[in-house]
């Protein structure tokens, strides 16, 4: 038997093995599932467009054009928020990161010295206007092609992820330092607040309410950016976005449990 015969025998054995065959209805079930998932996404998409139209009308009515301009969403920002939610879900909540997390020190040497800041910031117990956030774990991990410095915190018995990543041309349109900005809430209920500065973005992801998430971002994300050399200013008034609630993030992928 030559190697070609051996390969053919193996292929035949694999194709004929009864224990490896799918159930008779599996292909049909799979097809239906995929089809319905596509339909559901289409409905969500049209709902999102209706929501946007409503918000646009309200914004015009109350003269909030400036706010809308400041808080408009862009596809690249959505992609960053989606990656942050994905990492929060996989690594922070399910402990099943795409690639094995590595120590921050190692990540600082291999990828970005900025990750070293997360060794001590935020402190193990951080006080925000809404309460105390306690650090559970610090490491570096990645989701898709994006690498993060990841600090997992507990806040009001909920898990919060603080994710530090480098800004790139695709992640932001405007590289100026910016105060906490809402990206939106995913279909699964995870909100994202980002702060930009010093060439980096710090994202806070959790299912806590919008106002708490923004307050927590002011308390723990902003100091991280400042330690990196950013000059982020935090306004004294409540962020309007927090009062309005979250619009939906587009293009968001949250792996199923």
């Amino acid at each position, binding site marked *: 038997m030559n190697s070609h015969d051996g390969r053919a025998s193996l292929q035949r054995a694999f194709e004929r093995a009864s224990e490896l065959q799918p159930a008779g209805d599996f292909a049909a079930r*799979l097809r239906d599932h995929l089809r319905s998932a596509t339909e559901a996404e289409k409905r969500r998409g049209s709902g999102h467009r209706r929501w946007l139209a409503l918000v646009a009308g309200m914004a015009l009515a109350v003269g909030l054009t400036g706010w809308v301009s400041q808080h408009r969403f862009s596809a690249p920002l959505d992609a960053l928020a989606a990656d942050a939610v994905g990492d929060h879900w996989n690594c922070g909540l399910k402990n099943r990161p795409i690639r094995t997390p590595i120590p921050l020190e190692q990540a600082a040497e291999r990828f970005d010295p900025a990750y070293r800041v997360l060794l001590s910031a935020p402190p193990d117990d951080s006080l925000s206007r809404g309460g105390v956030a306690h650090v559970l774990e610090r490491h570096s991990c990645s989701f898709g092609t994006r690498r993060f410095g990841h600090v997992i915190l507990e806040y009001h018995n909920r898990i919060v992820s603080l994710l530090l990543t480098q800004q790139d041309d695709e992640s932001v349109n405007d590289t100026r330092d910016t105060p906490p900005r809402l990206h939106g809430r995913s279909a699964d209920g995870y909100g994202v607040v980002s702060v930009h500065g010093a060439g980096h973005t710090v994202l806070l992801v959790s299912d806590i309410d919008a106002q708490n998430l923004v307050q927590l971002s002011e308390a723990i994300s902003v100091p991280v950016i400042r330690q990196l050399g950013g000059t982020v200013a935090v306004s004294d008034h409540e962020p309007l976005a927090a009062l309005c609630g979250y619009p939906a993030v587009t293009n968001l992928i949250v792996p199923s449990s």
Partner: protein
Amino acid sequence: MFKRVAAEGDSDVWSRFEGEVLPHTDRLFRLAMWFERNRADAEDAVQDTMMQALKSFHRYEPGTNCRAWLVTILQRVVSNRRRARGRWVVVNDPDDRLALTVPFVPPVPQHLTDEEMLHALRRLPLAFQEVILLCDVEELTYKETAEALGIPIGTVMSRLHRARGQLRTELEATQPALLGASGPR
């Protein structure tokens, strides 16, 4: 993204997906079943794979090897699921270490049953099973296999060589009587 599927002429995209991707379901399932060893887990893995394929179907280039693209996604899905279950297969340098386990490469014996072939394959280290399944069973190129497994092409080639050698050793052990006639080693 689904949104792109939904936006880009739904029925056209779905038809293309249905025509090009879904026919590979059975093959994907066999691979998933081999690695997961559990029907429910294998179905989940294939479903995850197809969902991801649908989301990124806009990146698939018609005319390229659709099966290789799907196998690459499946490999990532299975690998992530394995990690999630804590079934890590951590070997610092599997090729160097496992090379020591292939001291002799006998010829492939004749008259093997399907069951004997698969049992022999199952006895190989997982890294060897993967490369044999992808290169020999699924007929992916070295380059496609390298992408699917996330390893260099050179590693694929050397690992495949060693894997085939060890498979022949296992097959010989399956049928010692047959090989007894093949002469002294």
